[in-house]
């Protein structure tokens, strides 16, 4: 790796690893898995340094690796290992409709999505990417992104019917 890239890469890590970690945490819902995801994406990005001469391109690449990895890697993981959601919806809520409770319900519902569904929602509603951008990043059709987001939202409502009453509070 040439020293110029290495310096840029280090600078990038110091500067951006916090943000990458937060996204990774939302994607995985687990601190250890999030650290692994970031680390692994960084390693893979470092390997591509030749094609990443432009330091400005680093973040885009790292993120793309993270999203891809999440969508493929987690599918496998959930098959092989039990993943603890921490707590389940029946432990919380109890019909209180205040917003804090609803956020807890939302978390629990998120934990029950498939990794792909969860990734879609994080990209759309946390990273604020457009459907077109998501499609480009994951290499799938826009229509597919749209329908997956729609289905993921529907699934949230289905696993946590409390969430649908939010509407009534305008």
């Amino acid at each position, binding site marked *: 790796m040439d020293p110029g890239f290495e310096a840029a890469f280090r600078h990038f890590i110091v500067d951006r*690893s916090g943000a990458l970690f937060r996204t990774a945490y939302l994607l995985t819902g687990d601190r250890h898995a999030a650290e692994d995801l970031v680390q692994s994406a960084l390693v893979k990005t470092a390997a591509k340094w030749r094609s990443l001469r432009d330091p400005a391109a680093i973040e885009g690449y790292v993120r793309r690796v993270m999203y891809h990895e999440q969508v493929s890697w987690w599918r496998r993981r959930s098959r092989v290992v039990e993943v603890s959601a921490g707590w389940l919806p029946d*432990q919380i809520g109890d019909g209180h409709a205040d917003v804090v409770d*609803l956020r807890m319900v939302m978390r629990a519902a998120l934990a029950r999505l498939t990794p792909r569904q969860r990734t879609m929602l994080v990209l759309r509603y946390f990273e604020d990417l457009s459907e077109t951008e998501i499609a480009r990043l994951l290499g799938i059709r826009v229509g597919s992104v749209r329908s997956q987001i729609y289905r993921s939202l529907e699934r949230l409502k289905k696993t946590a019917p409390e969430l649908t009453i939010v509407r009534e509070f305008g």
Partner: protein
Amino acid sequence: MNIENLLRETLSDMADEEQPPAPGRFLQVHERRPRRRSLALVAASAVAALAVGSTLVVQGLSSRAPGDVAAAVPSLAPERHSAATITVVEGMRLSQLFKKLSSLTGKPVAEFEQAAKDGTALGLPTYAEGALEGFALPGTYELSPTMSPSEILRAMVARFGPAAEETNLVDGARRAGRTPLEILTIASIVQAEAGRHEDMPKIARVIYNRLNRKMRLQLDSTVLYGLDKYGVSVVLKDLKSPSPYNTYRRFGLPPGPIGNPGYDAIRAALKPATGPWLFYVNTDPKQRITKFATSESDFAKLVEERDKKRGTR
């Protein structure tokens, strides 16, 4: 508010809550004694995590033949993973871990037990006194088909080092007047006993208070470990067991960790809450509620509360 806004707020809450590790964690350069670890393992398991600091990446990727690099760092194609992953759950015991590893790899449990015996090969710190329990850091590990039991366990121990550094285990132990192994032992008990993470520092406090007063710890989790059983409470016969982990009979800490604690439990063991408590009762296991008491009489009330709840269920 509609569901999309609620989702936005929830995600942003979650992101704010989880403190990112220091960037050094991803940069860290480790100068350990050289261990034979294949680069493939490094790249594949995201590894030994923190050892992947720039040096390793830099040297690994520029000084090796290009073919090596290609093998080590797979492309973006989603189907590249031929490996399985294993998650070491917080508090997991080695006996559970070995069973899981055995079913994933098809190798007999005995091979993992054998590999666990060679503390030096695993890279255990000297204060581990050669025993692996407590030093397989919880987290997710990727296994490639070519990894030997020793390599798998080594990857888990490799992640313990940075965890010990981040929590300042060795210095913290010295300040507490304990050995690092004792702190880890306490952390493993805290991990096993706590229903919720926020209770961990208080449970650690109870353990310290009891040790300082020369009271027996009387902790079911240690007894169950000694008997290789699981559950939340022990029966009378178990309490008579001569095992060194029977803290109903013996004074002081058990001889070593009773599982593999995570960061929060290690931190709790190093920084217990302040308080006079000597008892706690899991009054509502379903809601994972733990209540703390200082006097025997308050303790008795908590036990009563728990039994009442059990009775009504």
